[in-house]
Each structure stands twice: as structure tokens, then as C-alpha cells.
């Protein structure tokens, strides 16, 4: 399915996020959560959480991707309609970080889904997470 210009414009104005924890320590998760609170005011960018995958534009992945979570990650991604994008938040989502050699860890979101933006940090600050989302939108 091609990415229509209208859909992209809509995403740029108001991106709906779907956040998925694939086996994280929750450090990134609470900073993603913090980024959605009034102090950082994500609503001025139209950023909000999608009620379910079929309404989501951007999949925000945290965690090192455990083998068990990998299947769900793939399924969530496939449920999202085009155009869709993936942001890997935190060192674990990028490479598996300290856990990448574990027997239960795949090690990085891009081993399961295509990733459009990597936001490094352990965890990255809420401002950086928001900036990463905005930079992705700029590219559209």
C-alpha cells in the first residue's frame, strides 16, 4: 500500500502513538509516560496515545525484546494500518543493551520490525523522546 500524501499530512499534524513494552525495566516506559504529561505538553504537537493498534501511526517500542514478546510485537505492527512508523526508545530497544546475550532475549526491535527512528539513552529523557518523535515527523 502506498503512503498517500493526505495520510502523511494527517500524521504530521497529529501522530497517534502506540506504546509497547517488549521486556523492559520500565525505566524507558516511565519516561515515555512522563513525556505525555503537562510539563512536556505533547498535545501542542498533537501527540496522543492511540486507543488500539488500528488507530496508531507510530509504534513506540521499549525493552530488549524477549522471545515471548517478539511475537506480540510483530503482530501489533501488522495490525497497524499504513502509513506506519516505528521508534525504538532506549538502549535495550536498540540493541538489547545489557541483556542481549541472555537465553530469553532477541536483542533489539529492528530484529523483528523495521525501525524508523532510534532514540538512545538509558533511559532517554522525556524531552529527547518528544524530540525524536518530532524529528521523525519532519522527515515525512
Amino acid at each position: 500500500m502506498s503512503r498517500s500524501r493526505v495520510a502523511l499530512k494527517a500524521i504530521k499534524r497529529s501522530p497517534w502513538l502506540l506504546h509497547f513494552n517488549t521486556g523492559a525495566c520500565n525505566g524507558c516506559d516511565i519516561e515515555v509516560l512522563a513525556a505525555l504529561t503537562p510539563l512536556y505538553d505533547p498535545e501542542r504537537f498533537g501527540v496522543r496515545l492511540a486507543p488500539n493498534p488500528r488507530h496508531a501511526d507510530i509504534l513506540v517500542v521499549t525493552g530488549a525484546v524477549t522471545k515471548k514478546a517478539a511475537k506480540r510485537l510483530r503482530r501489533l505492527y501488522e495490525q497497524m494500518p499504513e502509513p506506519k512508523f516505528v521508534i525504538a526508545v532506549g538502549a535495550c530497544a536498540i540493541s538489547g543493551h545489557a541483556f542481549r546475550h541472555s537465553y530469553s532475549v532477541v536483542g533489539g526491535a529492528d530484529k523483528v520490525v523495521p525501525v524508523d527512528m532510534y532514540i538512545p539513552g538509558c533511559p532517554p529523557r522525556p524531552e529527547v523522546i518528544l524530540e525524536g518523535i518530532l524529528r521523525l515527523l519532519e522527515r515525512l
Partner: protein
Amino acid sequence: MSHVVEIPVGPQHPALHEPILFRLLVEGERIVRVVPSIGYNHRGIEKLAETNTFVKGLYICGRVCGICNIVHATTYTMAIERIQGVEVPPRARYLRVLVNELERIHSHMLIVAVMAEVLGFESLFMLIMRDREAVMQLKELVTGNRVLGDYLIFGGVRRDIDDAVAHRILRTLDHIEERVRYYRRVFEEDVTINKRLRGVGPISRAEAVRYCLVGPTARGSGVETDVRAEDPYEAYGELEFNVVTYPDGDSWSRMMVRIDEILESIEIIRQVLKRLPQGQAVPKTFKRALPKGEAIARAEAPRGELVYHVISDGKPTPYRVKIRTPSMANVINGIVAFKDAYIADAPAIIASFDPCISCMERVVEVVDLDKRKSTVVSLRELAGWRG
């Protein structure tokens, strides 16, 4: 009439897609059984701790849980220090208490905010999160990072504080105390909160003991147990504080324990800063050798007792590191609280355990026995369940 209801539950935000937390077997609107489905968060950390040096282990174990990371680092460090026979200087012991209590404050504020959200109080959630930001900034001021402090090192801490930092902490805590007292009044007086939490998910004192529950979840059932008081570590033995218990064992009691504990933590920090000993807190080096030995270190994490059982056979890689997190005990064993509860009460019960998924990485699904149908609902929808 029963049907399968899958509940995705986030550790912090109900609308976030997290590893499924609970599978409840229900008949009509009543919960019959709880079947855990787990493994989505299992990162094989105990094995990693055996295959890495005990030094790297500090950074691995400090990432078991982002919310209570400092307590994990503290407990692991204590176990290693006991095996090495290392004494921690007084100033460092007090600073460790400081950061552990800051951790408790932010963690408790988080779950109180989440509980508000679960009950539909979106604005209360936002208010508490805004106030919590001030605590995150204090954590950054002291440890250098908002979330993962990496503040501890064997034999001490990695950064010291000065009077300016101490002054800033005290000023911020004065403000936080005022706000938390307000939230306490809300939880005591608000009609809806009381209706949704009082009498919900009751756990008797005897059940709390036999189900081996810990932390605020146990203290909300009247069990007077707190590692800081019974098994003092770091500087807790030299400080005065109360062990907060509430007798009724319902979700309301468990939340009130945490709210009151925030106020206790503020007092503890004030004592720490008042009595902060002089001297070296940051060691110049640390022992690289890990002698043969064994230690069982315990600490009171925000969610309850945290145990690190470490065994060394003399190599730099530990022979065994067993981590028992409070959520592992509470959330799996806490299923007793769901007996005969309404589905709509499930989110409030779950939230009242303050489950830390990464700590316990458990997942539970709700299965309705009759209709054999499955529906995915958010925590909020579950809270408003009409069958």
C-alpha cells in the same frame, strides 16, 4: 454466563499496551480464579549475573527495575560488600538512605497517580505526575540521572552532595509534603474513591502471612513488617520513623499505607540531611576480588522486601545471584484478593498491589468460563465493566 476477557495491563498507564497482566476466570461479573500468564519480561538476569563479573553485575542488577533501580543496586551492593567484608563509611550510608527514600517517594507517587487514572480521575493523575516531576529532578540533582541512578559503588557512593543540594532538596520536599497531604485528604474524603476502593480485594492478616505478601500490600492488612525497622541496613538503624500499617486489608488501606509512607520518607530525608556525617562518601577505589562466601541482603523497596542471595566461589563471576523481588511474591500470591470480586474491581485490586512488571514479569489473563469468548479491554473499560 462467562466469557474470556483479556486484560492488557500496563505497569504505569492503563492505555499503554504492556505485557498482559492478568487472566481472570469469571462467571458473570464475579471472578472465580486467576491464572497467571508470564514470561514476557523475563530477561534471564540471574544467569547474566553468573556469566558477568560482579562489577558488571552491579549495572545489570541496577536495571532489573527502572522504578526501584536504586534499591536493587543497594541490595546487590550490600550482599557483595558483606562477602568482601567491606565497611561503608557513615556519610555514604546516609546518602544511600537519601536516594533510597527519594526512590520510594517517586514510586509511591507514581502508583497513586496510576490508581487515580484507573478510577477515572484523569486530572488527579496529571496533578500527581506534575508534582512527581519535582522528585525526579531531585534524583537527577543527586545521582546525575532522572531514572537509573547508577549511584552506588562498592564501599560507598559515586557522587557527594553539598549544602546547596541539601537546601534544594529540603525546599522541594516542603512543597511535596503540602501536595501529598492534599492528596491524602482526597483519598480519605472523596466519595467515589472510597466507594471504589474500600472493602475491595480484602486480604486478612492471616492470609497475608500464609501467602507470603510483603511491603505496603502486607502492611495494608495489618502486618507490621518493614525491613528498615526489623533488619536495619545502611543508616536506618540510626533514624526514627514509623512502620505504617492499616488494619482493613482492602485496596483503600494499601493505597493509604503508601501515601502515609511518602510523608514518612520526607521525614527520614530531613533527618538524613540534618545528621549527615562528615567524611569521605566516594571511595577512591574498590576491591576487585570477590572472596569465597555467601550473603543474604534484604532491603525495603517501595513495593516491599527485596532479597539478594549471593554465593561466591572465589571467582570474579558470582556463582549464584538469586533475586527475589517484592512483586514476584505479591502479584502471583496476591490472587487470593480476587476471590469473589467483581470484574470491575479487578483494576483497583491490581493497582493496589503496585505491580512492577519488570520486577516480577508476570502476566495474567481473564478467562470467562461460560461463553468461551475473548475480548480485549483496557483497564479503564474493565473498571466500568457492565458484563
